[in-house]
């Protein structure tokens, strides 16, 4: 029993965080999001060079050969940086892909996404999409995503080519949960930084408990979310039988935490938090996107609710 990162994992996280702090400061996040393209395609080469695109791809295929814990670390850090690019989409497609396709992902030559409930994240930024019927080219209609840094579309009806595997729902939910954790952490940091500086009635507003206590609640939210997120990531390879449950509750919990964290951060900012100019709305929109995609928390908690009920009982017959 040792629920902690190894030294290597801690170094890996610190390196990722430093890289993203240097390359994606908040003003650049906003500039990229408001640009015509909406993301910076040149960043894809950086991700390939860092070995992040092939983080979970085997080393003999040109990947980094890391595990789901490292994958979760990267997704948390990219969520924290509000990276706009089809990284999550591509990573979630990997379990369905064959060796050659994985190899081309690892070197940055192919971008993928997945179809979940008829919705395809980053449809206009990827080459191909994994569907229940196999692979198809990424063509279809774009929707007005709640999060402009994470576009979403619907596929047009087209031909499919068979794939060696399928996407794994537990991997999908775990990935979304990891990103949500990063969003929550960053929203808390931005909020804390502001309330230390902003003065009203002659004091930094963080002195007032009406301001500091909601931020303390975000901290305890994040502590619990972190535990569920990394337990889910651990479960993906260590206890596959429990992976869907662990990932479902991690996604349900962490996305609620991300939404609450961004909402509290906006509130403690007062009026400036409601402006387009301030970056917080972008984190809020990512949190809302993550909360909805692949199922709202209330739906995901079904896996826990169902286990609460006895296997057979009079009320089940009633329901049928």
């Amino acid at each position: 029993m040792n629920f902690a990162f190894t030294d290597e994992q801690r170094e890996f996280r610190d390196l990722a965080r430093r890289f993203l702090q240097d390359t994606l400061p908040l003003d650049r996040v906003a500039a990229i999001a408001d640009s015509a393209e909406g993301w910076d395609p040149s960043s894809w080469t950086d991700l390939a060079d860092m070995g992040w695109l092939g983080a979970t791809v085997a080393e003999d295929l040109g990947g980094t050969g890391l595990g789901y814990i490292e994958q979760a670390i990267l997704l948390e850090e990219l969520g924290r940086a509000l990276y706009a690019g089809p990284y999550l989409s591509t990573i979630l497609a990997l379990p369905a892909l064959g060796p050659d396709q994985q190899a081309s992902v690892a070197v940055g030559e192919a971008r993928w996404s997945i179809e979940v409930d008829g919705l395809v994240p980053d449809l206009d930024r990827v080459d191909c999409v994994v569907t229940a019927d196999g692979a198809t080219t990424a063509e279809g209609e774009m929707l007005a995503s709640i999060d402009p840094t994470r576009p979403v579309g619907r596929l047009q009806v087209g031909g499919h080519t068979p794939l060696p595997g399928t996407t794994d729902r537990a991997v999908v939910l775990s990935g979304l949960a990891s990103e949500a954790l990063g969003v929550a952490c960053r929203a808390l940091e931005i909020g804390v930084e502001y309330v230390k500086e902003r003065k009203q009635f002659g004091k930094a507003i963080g002195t007032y408990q009406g301001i500091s206590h909601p931020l303390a609640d975000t901290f305890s939210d994040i502590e619990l979310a972190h535990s569920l997120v990394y337990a889910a990531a651990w479960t993906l390879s260590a206890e596959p039988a429990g992976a869907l449950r662990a990932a479902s509750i991690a996604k349900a919990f962490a996305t609620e935490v991300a939404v609450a964290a961004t909402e509290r951060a906006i509130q403690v900012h007062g009026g400036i938090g409601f402006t387009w100019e301030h970056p917080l709305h972008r984190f809020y929109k990512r949190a809302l996107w993550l909360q909805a995609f692949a199922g709202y928390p209330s739906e995901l908690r079904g896996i826990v609710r169902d286990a609460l009920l006895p296997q057979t009982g009079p009320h089940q017959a009633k329901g049928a």
Partner: protein
Amino acid sequence: MDLNDSPEEAAFRAEVRTWLEDNAPADLRELSSPAALRDLPDAGPAKEWSAKLANAGYAGLTWPAEHGGRGAPLTFQGIYLEETAAAQAPSHLGVIGLGMIGPTIIEHGTDKQKQHLAKILRAEEVWCQGFSEPGAGSDLAGIRTHAEHRGNVFIVNGQKVWSSFAHISDYCMLLVRTGTSSDRHRGLTMLLVDLRSSGVDIRPIREMTGDAVFDEVFYTNVEVPAENVLGEVGAGWSVAMTTLGHERATLGFSLVGALEAQLQRVIEFARKRGVADPILLDRLAREAIEVEALKLTNRRMLAALSNGGTPGPEGSAIKLRWSLSNQRLTGLALELTGAAAVAPDEEWRYQLLRSRANTIEAGTSEVLRNVVAERVLGLPRSR
């Protein structure tokens, strides 16, 4: 990262589980409820059970072997607490002595004071703590109970409140003022007080549950031998912080273990009643997830401690969330019975009312949020 037990941990868990199955008879289970202790004429059966735990090596698991402990790693204490909660087995009568006072004596005590340790392990001595006062709750540095050094004794005068189990205790670890009140935390001293001393008056406080498990203790010209000072005169604050630090180290496991047992009882109750309302079931599911998150967070804290860290203010989050979850769960248990909850099941009536103290005792939720805001997030002090 490994969430599974190591082979040694798994073996210890199996050992504890088997021992509890063989040794925790059903009629002893009620001893784990504080309600039961109120009416104990003497704490005899609970003391016998505690001695049995000590003889089996489960008291003072993490205490060094030279002081009668097992010298086991913290994970073993965590496993022990999880297993006793799962078995709904009664805890050792001296939870305060084992978890807080013993470790403080080990750290600060003289050889003579350390003679208490073996008796604490076997519950031959029950200890309580005397920290809070009517005028010093969250603001502990404001205590006024006074001790005057006269020759080789201290003369204690004052009043303590919320001393759990003082009425069945033999000794009290008492925080007193030996300096002036303007010294604040620098003028405090820790005394080990024999509660049979003349001038000690213990009065139970009747709580909203109807029980009286907490006490007020009045000290009138009580003579305490100077050799009973724990640590240095004037160093009471740092001794008290040692005690509270030990409380924090494994408190999370006791609390969350009890919460998990509570959750299981509510789930069984819901099943027995055939509850199918999706709204109630979703609220129950939320608590199940909260409990799981708390259990995992405990394991993370434990890993941080075992890897060489000290119990930090981050632990406040566990106590805060535990208390709120227990309040929601007990409220939910009553709601599962619908309008019949106007005359609720006695156990749930008790649990619901008792849970109101959870957000007040061992650090109010507001103090805990201050601790997180100031010591973790680095926000300016609010006072």
